[in-house]
């Protein structure tokens, strides 16, 4: 079963606007990661935030983590048409020897040129 929910499930914006996606999870985690998946392709790792971090930046990406609320958000600033994809959060649980990822249901982002 999936770890949690992402919202919105779908998001459509104009090029240049910012896109914000939210993720909630259920169990205690070691870290939370965000992945992008283009249609018909595999997942690409975007960014990882550890459970003791609150915010992290990478280029146009900004990730926040609130462990008290068991939630995270991904902000993409100044979006481009090439950002059109599905975005998934994934968690690695504490004391998980295999470090397997538990994914949310994803947000389908469409950026219109």
């Amino acid at each position, binding site marked *: *079963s*999936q770890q949690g929910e992402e919202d919105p499930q779908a998001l459509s914006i104009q090029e240049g606007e910012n896109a914000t996606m939210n993720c909630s999870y259920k169990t205690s985690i*070691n*870290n939370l990661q965000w*992945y992008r998946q283009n249609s*018909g*392709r*595999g*997942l*690409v*790792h975007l960014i*990882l935030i*550890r459970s003791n971090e609150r915010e992290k930046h990478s280029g146009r990406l900004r990730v926040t983590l609130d462990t008290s609320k068991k939630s995270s958000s991904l902000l993409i600033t100044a979006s481009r048409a090439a950002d059109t994809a599905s975005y*998934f959060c*994934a968690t*690695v649980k504490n004391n*998980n*020897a*295999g*470090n*397997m*990822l*538990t*994914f*949310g*249901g*994803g947000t389908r982002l469409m950026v219109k040129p």
Partner: protein
Amino acid sequence: GAGVSQSPRYKVAKRGQDVALRCDPISGHVSLFWYQQALGQGPEFLTYFQNEAQLDKSGLPSDRFFAERPEGSVSTLKIQRTQQEDSAVYLCASSLLGTSSTDTQYFGPGTRLTVL
């Protein structure tokens, strides 16, 4: 190649047929994972290998699913007597060590299985 490769990319099977899906991880990567992704959903964990040892198979949905990695590199996911509910994209991922929770998993393009 530099990335994780999977074959075939697409597979159509008649219900009841057996299928075998192949994953070539990044050379030297110790850990290998299989995930199943239903249409419109996020991937779900199936099984995990560290070298040739299958350390976790808790996500395999039934005993019709079997995975192996006999030499610690290439892995095969086999599904026996396929059912329509097996239709999904099967993703393989590898990571260098897998002993750290921060190790990045690199995903292949997936095999889209359609069971008629």
